[in-house]
């Protein structure tokens, strides 16, 4: 048999504050479980190689690439997807900033952009513009909505400092 496929197992993961039990091969990328078993739309398959960021989720507050993270390795760490930040009725301030700046074209990249920026600013609230930009070094947006995205992140960062927004 082909190496890389083992027997399925019951795995419980905590996603957006809710526990889910799925029966899958533990090597299955977390992304596939989030998309296909949990029906989440935020993280998306871009490259499967951890090169673009489209599949980004937060794992215990850190931005990780769910396309290369085996679901079996998640353990008790809490997963947050774009859906877990805020809702249409009550947007998270970073979503609000992106909305106000109109910071998207096709929007496929947004999990990578928003969650990477948020995780970075959570860890380093006083980061300079240059540090924020550098933190986004692994993120691609092929529509090149960079102008608005960087403006939205700056707006969120400033608002965060001003209001000491809770994470």
């Amino acid at each position: 048999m082909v190496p890389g496929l083992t027997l399925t197992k019951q795995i419980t993961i905590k996603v957006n504050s809710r526990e889910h039990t799925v029966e899958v091969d533990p090597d299955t990328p977390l992304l596939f479980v989030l998309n296909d078993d949990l029906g989440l739309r935020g993280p998306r398959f871009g490259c499967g190689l951890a090169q673009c960021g489209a599949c980004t989720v937060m794992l215990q507050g850190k931005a990780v690439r769910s396309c290369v993270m085996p679901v079996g390795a998640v353990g008790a760490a809490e997963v947050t997807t774009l859906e877990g930040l805020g809702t249409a009725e009550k947007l998270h301030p970073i979503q609000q900033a992106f909305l106000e700046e109109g910071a998207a074209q096709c929007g496929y990249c947004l999990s990578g952009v928003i969650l990477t920026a948020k995780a970075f600013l959570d860890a380093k609230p006083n980061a300079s513009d240059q540090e924020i930009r550098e933190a986004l070094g692994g993120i691609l947006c092929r529509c090149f909505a960079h102008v608005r995205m960087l403006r939205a992140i700056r707006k969120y960062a400033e608002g965060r400092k001003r209001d000491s927004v809770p994470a």
Partner: protein
Amino acid sequence: MTPSRRDFLKGCGALVVSFRASGQGIFGTHRSHIDPARIDSWLAIGADGTITAYTGKCDFGQGIFTAQTQLIAEELCVAITRVKLIECDTAMTPDQGTTSGSQTTPTNFNSENLALAAATAREALLGLAAKELGEPVDELRLDNGVITGSSGRRVRYEDLIGSKHFNLPLSATATRRSETQWTVLGKPVPSLDRVALMTGQFEFVHCHHVPGMLHGRVVRPPEMGATVADVDEHLVHGLPGLTKVVVRKDFVGVVAETQYQAVVAARGLVVHWNPGPPLAAQETFFEHMQQQPAHDALSVDSGDVETRLAAAGNVVRARYTYPYQMHGSLGASCAVADVKPDSATVWSPTQSAYPTRSIIAKLLGLPLDSVRVVYVRGSGCYGLNGADAVSFDAAVLSQAVGKPVRLQFSRRDEMMWENLGSACVIEHRAGLTPEGRIIAWDRENWVASLGNRPGYDRPGNVISGMLTGYAAEPLEPGPAKPPREKLRNGSNTVPSYFAGCAGGTCNGGGTIRSERALTHTVHSPFFTGPLRSPLRIQNTFANECFMDELCAQAKADPVAFRLQHLQDSRTIGVLKAAAIACKWDERSPHSAARTGVVRGRGIACVAYEGENGYAALVAEVTVDMDTGAVHPRRFVVALDCGPISNPDGLRNQIEGGILQGMSRSLVEEVTWDNKRITSIDWRTYHSLHLDYEIPTIESVFVTPAGVPATGAGETAITVTPAAIGNAIFDATNVRLRTLPFTPERVRAALLQDGHKGA
């Protein structure tokens, strides 16, 4: 397939399909049962007053969904929230071909199609109200779907027509609301998809789910032209979840219960391939192109170019080259197909719903009207990415297993097999008078081409069709015929400065009457197809940089020199506007010292496709003379696209277009070895990431009175490589004639120049 449209409308009580006479639609210009000449094909008013509009032009993330919604709201004088727009669904929307080429705005926002349907509907509703209220139309007031007579009596749209057919043809004389009346159009309405996007709720085709759906993967050949020798299933035999290995001629795919199982099965399947032919070396590819048999075409030929050039005191020559580039969509393409024995539905990110339906019907052997293609947005595409191929493949896989299949490409499937933006070579010769005027300009270009959009009947124009046994559109080498028809300049082959005389009219933007533009189309080893500003960006790079070379030879100012050779008022308009906006005339002469980090500026302009949008762009760049690193610092763009439907959407498009153009100017280039494309992921195909220090972008809009709306999405990107190239020259006195302007390439050119100068 019509019941779905009916079912859909039950909610708002309208029954609205406007059928063509039997058969006519399928074989006529519009291959649809939905007659574009009828109001009911474009919009319906439900019993509850909801307005449902149907468009054959779909949104790929650039905001045209919102702009079309604004258009309907504007023409029917209702709030935007009352309009529900249905995009590109062969069961419901008219056949508008492909959404591409900056054609949506000219097609749907002027005096035809969607705009005309809405204007006709408004006039019809006023006519009905006039009868109902017993007052002449002139006495009626229309406000938010309520028509009030001078008597004060009121009637609502839904009272007049709710859930009933208009039963009327589009009226060519229906009057659009004028820009001065606009309350919804022309406003920066935020794109309607944004809240869903920001919160992760937006449905991309990638998350479309059909009950019982399985997952597919394709197993592509290792190289172009390879054919299946043998498929060895023994390693994947009995693999958990594997439903089927599907082989159809050279198409190989797997279907499994989960995505991961499909990935593992595709990885484990052993396919023996007969090798394809070796590839021409990348290092000498442009020379190779110029030696191939070619299909020739003349855009213009005044017949006197050789004589004029021979008489000119100063003949300037230059050769430009432009590499293959990729759409490189962020999301690998995905589609979901549900093929049953006698019908099929495919949820597809295609730009071409109806053509895709025709191809799928052909591939599956099903009657055309039993196939339905429903557009669901994918990752931004910028042209013919893998969207069509993945839709065909999904359908083939679904038919093979008799169940719904979701198929997503791998990154390599996407990048190795997409229809690339064509590699081009452009050679110029131009004669200058002693006074520094251009008196003759000869231009020859070579375009590498294989396949294209599949259209309604050419599956072989993309990889999926080729693998299942269909040929690409053949290239027929042969000499050019004299140009007899009026110049259209759809690929911007002809520089803006040509008089463009052919077929008895001079349709160019400029004053140069001794002119020739000859195009050689040659065979490409890779599939090619439209990539944002197809051929227009390649041609404009060469035209506008060469114009700059002529200007330097004439020791003239680049703006003044261009103006001297232009006569088209709209190109002149944007050129002047950009110069004013960037304070072109106020720069102090820059230092002669060319060491360290130097700064320069360049300008380029274009009449996109001759008449479909006008842009002039000023780029300011720095160049590190030691490393060769080029960094754009400021862009100032002036744009004329006629009346603007949504200024926010337009700015977003301009910003994205310029930065995408910058990425393509600085880093993007497809690479290959003697067997296959080697730029197959984001380590090997470069794209500027979000950490790039972006330049400022300032945009000004020029809107002459009384002009129709043109395309806008591809105008700014078209001039970006040339503006950057001209700025590099201004900064360094060195001319770069090939893209991308990588540090290695720039440094090599600087060194060469240094040797020459020594």
